[in-house]
């Protein structure tokens, strides 16, 4: 797939590297040559030119691309660039926007007519993600797969979890309603086999169906915390979006260090308490009654501050912490440090792009990426190897596991004796690099 990305900022750079390592033909365009110099070592092409110039977009090959992605910091430029690219002949165009209004009708239809097929709004995606996290406080992550028929939750296990100390083989016999698909242990992701034991501090990825969620909750020794009050550190655009999206469901208090910003926030978010001060100041947090809050959300511009803020909030006894971590290399560390949920705009934006790609191109089957494992959704073809016998007799290699499938619109978990039928939509977990093997099985 030929992809043109305009804007070598954070999201653009991350996407370009990711898509290039996925084997796509990537052309990265930016008007600032120095930003493009860092890409000399990557397997992609760069082009220096104005994102809104017909000539330079044409030269960069926007007219012949399958997907055009505009992620410069300015939404007007993004929208215009998409419109131009579409006019030049791009098959599909995606723009990053900065305004919730553009996601709704009638603006949406207006922009589709202009040539902008999809919009990404990273701040909104982040707010959505945080809403999920606040609703399901006991999970690290929550994914709805196969049209919501299959749920994958990531849970960090403590001593009191019933799962701890069990081998997967024992588990399979007594609980058929859940499938442990992957385990993240000390920065490493493993696809567990029957003899693998579940340990304390593992993050386990459990596939299940919606009706069994309470049972999973019980097995993992977690309890749902009802959240009423949320303290936000850092009044960024994401914070604003989060408060808007919650729409009065929670009581918010925002601590912001910039006085000017505080005044603007109080005007924009009248129902919200705004406090001027440094969110790292223990006395201030104490004064504002941090221990009365059920959730703490750190959204300042600095990842380090956010991580530390969350850690001190944990000490105050806050049940749920969410940190925005923009440095990708910190994410793994942050997860190890007992921070409830980590939010990263870049990853959210790029997984959204993946979804868009998935909709456009049926040959690309990846649906989400965990740290170093991929989750793939595939359709079993007539006569493919996967349909020939029961799963346990297929002798699958150790770097993949089949979590569940969708048959006749209903989600089913896969067990050893399941026979996959042609036409089933199947969810497979595999380690990075095993994708080819998985695809072969289904062909």
């Amino acid at each position: 797939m030929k992809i043109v990305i305009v804007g070598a900022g954070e999201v653009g750079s991350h996407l370009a590297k990711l898509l290039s390592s996925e084997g796509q033909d990537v052309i990265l365009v930016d008007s600032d040559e120095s930003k493009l110099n860092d890409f000399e070592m990557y397997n992609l092409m760069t082009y220096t030119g104005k994102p809104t110039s017909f000539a330079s977009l044409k030269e960069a090959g926007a007219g012949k691309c399958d997907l055009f992605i505009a992620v410069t910091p300015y939404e007007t430029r993004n929208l215009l660039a998409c419109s131009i690219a579409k006019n030049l002949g791009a098959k599909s165009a995606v723009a990053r926007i900065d305004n919730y209004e553009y996601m709704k009708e009638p603006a949406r239809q207006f922009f589709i007519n202009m040539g902008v097929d999809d919009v990404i709004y990273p701040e909104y995606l982040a707010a959505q993600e945080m809403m999920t996290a606040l609703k399901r406080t006991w999970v690290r992550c929550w994914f709805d797969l196969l049209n919501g028929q299959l749920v994958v939750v990531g849970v960090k296990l403590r001593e009191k979890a019933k799962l701890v100390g069990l081998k997967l083989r024992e588990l399979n016999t007594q609980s058929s309603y859940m499938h442990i698909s992957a385990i993240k242990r000390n920065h490493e992701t493993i696809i567990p086999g029957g003899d693998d034991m579940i340990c304390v501090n593992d993050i386990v990825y459990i596939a299940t169906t919606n009706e069994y969620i309470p049972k999973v909750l019980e097995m993992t020794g977690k309890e749902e915390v009802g959240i009423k009050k949320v303290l936000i550190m850092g009044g960024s655009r994401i914070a604003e979006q989060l408060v808007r999206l919650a729409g009065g469901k929670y009581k918010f208090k925002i601590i912001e260090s910039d006085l000017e910003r505080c005044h603007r926030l109080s005007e924009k978010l009248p129902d919200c308490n705004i406090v001027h001060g440094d969110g790292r100041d223990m006395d201030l947090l104490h004064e504002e009654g941090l221990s009365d809050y059920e959730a703490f959300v750190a959204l300042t511009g600095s990842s380090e501050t956010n991580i530390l803020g969350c850690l001190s909030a944990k000490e105050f006894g806050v049940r749920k912490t969410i940190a925005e971590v923009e440095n990708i290399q910190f994410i793994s560390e942050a997860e190890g440090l007992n921070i409830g949920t980590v939010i990263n705009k870049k990853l959210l934006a790029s997984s959204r792009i993946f979804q868009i790609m998935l909709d456009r191109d049926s040959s690309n089957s990846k649906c989400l990426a965990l740290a170093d494992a991929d989750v793939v959704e595939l359709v079993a073809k007539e006569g493919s190897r996967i349909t020939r016998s029961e799963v346990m007799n297929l002798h699958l290699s150790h770097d993949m596991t089949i979590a569940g499938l969708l048959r006749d619109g209903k989600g089913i978990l896969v067990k050893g004796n399941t026979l996959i039928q042609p036409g089933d939509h199947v969810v497979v977990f595999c380690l990075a690099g095993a994708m080819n093997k998985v695809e072969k099985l289904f062909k």
Partner: protein
Amino acid sequence: MFRKKSNLNFPAILRMLGWLLMIEAMFMLAPLVVGVIYEEIETLKSILYSVLITATSGAIMAFGLVPKNMDMQKRDGLLLVPVVWAAFSFFGALPFLFTGTIDNMAGAFMEAMSGFTTTGLSVITDVEILPKSILFWRAVMHWVGGMGIILFSLAVLPMLNYHGGMQLFNAEVTGITHDKLRPRVSSTAKSLWMVYIVLSIIMAILLWAGPMNLFDALCHTMSALSTGGFSTKNSSIAWWDSTYVTVTVTIFMFLGGMNFALLYKAARGDFRSLWHNGTFKWYCCVVLISTTLVAAYVVFNKLYGFEIGKTIVDALFTCVSVITSTGLLVADIETWGEFTILIMCILMFFGACAGSTAGAAKIDRLELMMKNIANEFYRVLHPNSIVNVHINRKVVPQEVVSKAIVFLGTYMCIIVVSAMALVVIGIPMKEAFFSSLSALGNIGIGIGSAANGCYASYPAVAKWLLSIVMLIGRLELFTFLVLFTRDFWHK
């Protein structure tokens, strides 16, 4: 998540090397076929042994050790590229040794290195008595080395598209900046090789249509387009004494000295970027000026023949041959006077365009240096003014300019050091400088005892030295020299 990045990934390097050696073995099959056609039984056996040894060594390296991961960092790429070139030359020398064409290792290694680096200097005094298959192997080495061993493997090994292919591409491809023609490095490599192969086919047909037979046409195609310089005759192109051959070879040497990215664009109908390319204009100007000077000097001093037309054609041929670092000859340049040799030295220093098959310091850097010198003079008068170096109507960042100037400085240092070493070994001074220049620029001509590019009389030490100098020149100094810095091996 946290992998140590500073350590070299030797198993991966070894596996890559193994794969590449198997590719070399595949190329060795070409002279084998020639041997079968011309029924050279003895030579055939020797070459077959070479193929087997190379392929087996390659297979052992590729499959003997299973690397934990194939990730290659910058360092791995920088180490792999010189090692690959050295290993190619080592195994490429086997056919010479086994057939007894060259009886010593130093000479055989130098011949192979000279082949792969497209230098074209030789240790064989009489090439006309050699078996056809050996002559063909010399030409094939040129052809592969001209476009680049790594570049070829990038086009054919799909795994390089992910694992460090970019590092290798950047380490091998010549020039100040690296043009990428297509988004993925493998497609870029394929496009470049496509241009190369198409040009080769056209040239071979044109030569064959003239007085050359098919074998000579093929050999000279591979040797001229890759700007190599090995010939199948002792007197090189002069043997045919045909204006048609001279002109055809001149044209294709000239094309070989052009930036292949530009050729690719031109082939796709984009002639504008060719006409507007400043470096291309410089290249044409330098060729025309040097030809005029040489022809005028030779005519006025009545040094060569009497026919002005032939003098001009031959002068053009020689200038193009030297500037593109080919080193094919139509006349003995030493008889053309000291001034001609001086012009040749200047041409040898700068060479043709970056991104071509040519060697030497590249005309791009000459252009950059000249423009920078002009700017510096301007700054003396107007210290506060901002003046930038413009190339193709774009401002060149100061780091790139300084990189190019450091390159030129280092280049001269290496010439001096290598010439000094040669003088110590016992080569006359003028000849030592000329030989160093010729080896470092991958040209392959010589004067004095190395006249016509035949270095057979040099002692073994000098041969090893020149082999290394050729490699340094082909890999544009830094890729090779960085291996000798402390920082490369330390964390």
